């Protein structure tokens, strides 16, 4: 009986400790991205344009060229990641510097526009080391749609940054996070 009481009291304490850990923190927006692929609605208008598949359907490049494309897109994605991290840190800081924010969102918007052209056929895991999954070319339409949604989210946040509206940047960066994840989850393989 005393054991039961102990377990009940312990459970109650644990529950008491279980508030939303993000609420205590400035980077509250980092949570709940797990709710899968819900991408910003603003993006839907420009999505699903079949003509945009052209890049992916282009003839496969020769091997050395393919490897260069793969290497360059890896660097570009890493640059995007760095921009995201820098942006989040800036938004979390006590006094966000709008110039630092602008530099990051400009990178995001510019890099997002390049994504569809960075994945031509013949640059998959069968050619060289890459975390790009074959699904990119099996479900090209979805891939292009997701990249367009990311572009829309990146352009929206960049516009807010250019206008100097930090609050809007804060509100919009969650959309960018979701758009990253919506494409990475189905189309990027784990590390190693």
């Amino acid at each position, binding site marked *: 009986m005393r054991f039961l009481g102990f377990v009940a009291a312990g459970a109650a304490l644990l529950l008491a400790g279980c508030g939303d850990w993000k609420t205590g923190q400035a980077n509250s927006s980092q949570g709940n*991205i797990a709710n899968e692929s819900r991408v910003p609605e603003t993006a839907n208008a420009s999505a699903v344009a079949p003509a945009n598949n052209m890049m992916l359907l282009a003839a496969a490049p020769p091997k050395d060229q393919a490897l260069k494309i793969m290497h360059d897109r890896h660097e570009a994605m890493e640059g995007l990641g760095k921009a995201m991290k820098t942006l989040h840190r800036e938004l979390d800081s006590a006094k966000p510097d709008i110039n630092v924010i602008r530099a990051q969102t400009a990178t995001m918007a510019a890099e997002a526009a390049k994504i569809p052209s960075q994945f031509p056929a013949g640059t998959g895991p069968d050619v060289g080391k890459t975390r790009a999954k074959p699904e990119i070319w099996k479900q090209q339409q979805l891939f292009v749609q997701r990249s367009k949604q990311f572009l829309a989210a990146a352009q929206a946040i960049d516009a807010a940054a250019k206008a100097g509206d930090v609050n809007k940047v804060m509100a919009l960066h969650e959309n960018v996070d979701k758009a990253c*994840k919506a494409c990475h989850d189905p189309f990027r393989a784990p590390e190693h």
Partner: protein
Amino acid sequence: MARQPVWDLPVRLFHWTLAALILFSWWSVHNHHTDWHIWSGCAILTLLIFRLLWGFVGSSTARFSTFVRGPRAIAGYWRGTWRGIGHNPLGALSVLALLAAVAVQVGLGLFSEDEDGLYMGPLAQLISVDASDKARDLHETWFNVILVLIALHLIAILYYRARGRKLTLPMITGRAEVEPGTEPMRPGKWWAALICLAIGIGITRWIIAGAPPFGP
């Protein structure tokens, strides 16, 4: 031989919750649930603080002062002269190594951020982007150390089992067959366990809030 108490309830709950959370941490981070992974790490932090405190005020078999012994005791155990309940002097090393390795892992996790910059550990804002990426690299590498220690832990259990000693059941029921004349376990106070847990939760909440004065 009669079955006597050897592990108190807090020790058993700690053990199985820790095992479950380590498994869950591994699963969640490999299945696109980084936010759950961070939650899980925070829960493990609470458990570790609890266990550290319980190691000073808990039941006799939970206390570090009872089971952490010098090399002479380990040699004695090796020769078969050790008599007692709880962690034996050699097993104590395994306990310390596991606790320390998990603590290092949690510490690295607190300062890590994911590769895409979508999720940050609660203390990641305190350090630079590069340092945080480095912390994540180490966090990934250090998991191998934990895997090795868990493997040793399981191998030891199988080894004892092969020699006729069952260790898993006592960790569930809390009781084991004890040779007559062995000093019995002195239980801890249940309210002391709750205080230890409350302190663990309190410190974890403080870290989750972003540490020093709640943020950089």
